[in-house]
């Protein structure tokens, strides 16, 4: 601190800084505060670290990430990548992470669909529709997600009938207290042609969309983008599918006395978590959508009508693009919330990252610091990555002001 020469500086000169003690000089005081904070935080970190090292050596807990390659020795019910009890803790981590991403991504798709429907219904002039949507939003938003998860899991899915009394649904679906059993698609050798046709159709759709937009900007003429797009994305793969001799069959689950053979089993934990997350997040998305649509002033619609646009194009070309600009940022934070809330899986026993890694692995290894740091780092990475993408999107879509 350069307080030593402060008294000398004063003097009589008019241009000189006024003579003030250093604790009254905001700039120097700022440095002091910052140094103080730095020292305090530094000391806290140092004390915590040295205590932790002390405690860990006393409790004979290993440190470091060596446990990553040790044998896990526990089983995980739902796994999308190969995993056995002899696999390593690192493998268990990946299984949990994939499960988290699975439930989050499927949840985001369904929550968006349901949320947009409810949000638009909330703005409907139809009294009944409006009130039903309002009741949905209020009830769901004002009860804890954990309570809803427990309800779906314990009161609804666990109360489903036993395997031999399974509820048989058309198309080879069976529902019982061990989950939902679905036909498993079996892809024939020539199915790859269909995949390629789908990829080609998608690319064609995007190319046509670009061309149509350019054409509209140039001449003002609109093209049937949706119709042509549907044709490219659905009809072309379908044609190829039949041309290739229908290379897709289904392995339909077979109901036995105590078990179901074949098919794909969707675990009740997954269903409960997905149901809870979708229904809960949809209520919040509905409010986001409502606020976004209401943020577009009525004058915009009226001006569009005055220009002779019909209600359909008005919605497409005027209201929705402006509403989306308001909707997208809070919508992303709802997506992030859904992803973070998927960690409540631990309450219903769905093997997500938190349940597998921060639950079982932490209990087995006792290496709390490392395990919790890794888990938090994963969620932080997801959050920061999403914010980066959002900032990029916002800078592209932000209103360009004069």
């Amino acid at each position, binding site marked *: 601190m350069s307080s030593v020469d402060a008294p000398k500086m004063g003097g009589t000169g008019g241009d000189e800084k006024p003579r003030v003690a250093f604790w009254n000089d905001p700039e120097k005081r700022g440095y002091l505060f910052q140094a103080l904070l730095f020292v305090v935080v530094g000391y806290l970190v140092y004390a915590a670290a040295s205590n932790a090292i002390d405690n860990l050596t006393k409790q004979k807990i290993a440190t470091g990430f060596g446990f990553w390659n040790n044998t896990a020795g526990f089983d995980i019910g739902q796994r999308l990548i190969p995993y056995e009890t002899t696999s390593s803790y690192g493998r268990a981590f990946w299984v949990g992470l994939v499960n988290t991403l699975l439930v989050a991504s499927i949840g985001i798709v369904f929550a968006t669909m349901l949320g947009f429907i409810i949000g638009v219904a909330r703005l*409907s002039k*139809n009294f009944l*529709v409006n009130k039903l949507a309002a009741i949905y939003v209020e009830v769901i938003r004002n009860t804890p997600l954990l309570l809803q998860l427990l309800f779906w899991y314990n009161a609804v899915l666990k109360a489903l009938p036993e395997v031999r009394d399974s509820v048989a649904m058309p198309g080879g679906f069976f529902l019982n207290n061990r989950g939902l059993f679905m036909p498993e698609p079996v892809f024939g050798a020539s199915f790859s042609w269909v995949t390629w046709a789908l990829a080609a159709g998608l690319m064609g759709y995007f190319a046509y969309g670009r061309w149509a937009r350019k054409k509209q900007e140039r001449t003002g003429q609109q093209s049937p983008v949706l119709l042509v797009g549907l044709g490219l994305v659905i009809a072309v793969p379908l044609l190829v599918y039949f041309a290739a001799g229908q290379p897709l069959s289904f392995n339909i689950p077979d109901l036995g006395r105590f078990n179901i053979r074949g098919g794909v089993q969707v675990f009740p934990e997954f269903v409960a978590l997905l149901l809870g997350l979708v229904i809960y997040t949809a209520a919040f998305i509905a409010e986001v959508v409502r606020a976004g649509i209401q943020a577009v002033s009525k004058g915009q619609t009226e001006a569009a009508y005055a220009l002779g646009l019909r209600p359909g194009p008005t919605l497409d070309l005027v209201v929705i693009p402006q509403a989306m600009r308001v909707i997208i940022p809070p919508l992303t934070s709802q997506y992030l919330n859904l992803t973070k809330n998927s960690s409540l899986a631990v309450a219903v026993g769905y093997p997500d990252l938190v349940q597998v890694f921060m639950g079982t692995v932490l209990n087995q290894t006792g290496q709390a610091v490392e395990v*919790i740091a890794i888990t938090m780092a994963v969620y932080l990475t997801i*959050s920061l990555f999403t914010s980066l993408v959002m900032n990029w999107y916002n800078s592209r879509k932000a209103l360009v002001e004069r």
Partner: protein
Amino acid sequence: MNTQVVSASSKAYVRQEPAAVLPPPGSLIGPLAWIRDNLFSSPSNILLTVVAAAVAYISIPSFLNFLIFDAVWTGADREACIAKNGVVPGACWAFVRERVNFFIYGFYPVDQRWRVDLFFVLGAIGVAWMLWLKAPRRDIGMIYFLVVLPLVSYYLLGGAAWLGLPAVDTARWGGLMVTLVVAGVGIVASLPLGILLALGRRSKLPVIKFFSVMFIEFVRGVPLITVLFMANTMLPLFLPDNITVDKLLRALVGIGLFASAYMAEVVRAGLQALPKGQYEGAMAMGLGYWQMMRLIILPQALKVTIPNIVNTYIGLFKDTSLLLIVGIFDFLKAIETARIDPQWAAPTTSTTGYAFAAIVYFLFCYGMASYARAMERRLSVADKR
């Protein structure tokens, strides 16, 4: 109208008085018109109405039947609620009635439960004092709510030998009381901490800004569960081993820090909404930083963010349910424990327990949400001037 001219040219066919205002035609007012406008204005609207009516017709009666008409209200054990003649009755309210004390107090000693009741009353007084904007001496209310109430509650619930209150270990606390204690501590702690963090984030001092941003973004980027796990398993590691931290206190630290990061962002939005002239005006008056914040900036910034602050509190209140995952006996845990008790093993016990929990959480959260909405209306009226 110039009556003199009219009377001068008085003719039988000239109207002497303005015609009486006719009522609007019956097709535009009244319940029928309302129904047509709101339910049957167009073919697509009619379709919507039919679908919505079907949804309402299927869901609402079955809800009411389960919760009220088919419900079992009295009974001593599961016999009252099991299926009779193959008919499963509705909600088993007899179970809730018998266990309601357990839901509220947990394992708190029966003869000491008046202390919890007193805590509820004192807390209700504090909340009413803070929320009622025209209440007398709200400045004292602030001190009561933020300083007196926490101290009194601490000794009242935990015990104080010098007052003749026997100590009650936090392991015996439970139920709604724990939920309210945790939510209360979160509410009282998160606002000042959040304000400090928000000011830190907007500070011109780089080190302070850096630490604030790091803390806020870190906490907001991870799920609450991981923060609770961290508080539960890592806090004891970070402290010297002669200090043991109570399990409830660990959870309180976790929840408090978590809520304050979210509160910081809410307060920051309020600070950003203030026009720069307010800062410049305060500085021109010669106010220092803290004087400026205390007298000019924060009163205005906090006022416009009251609805958002209350919304954060709603989130905090719902989040307290996560405590059951780290083994704290909160309200939801009390329900979870009671519903699997064999004494009440009946088909609808679980659903009834969850329905009761949902109603309790809903009442608290909806109450807060209504207050936030009322504040929002008040503020928007004040803005329009």
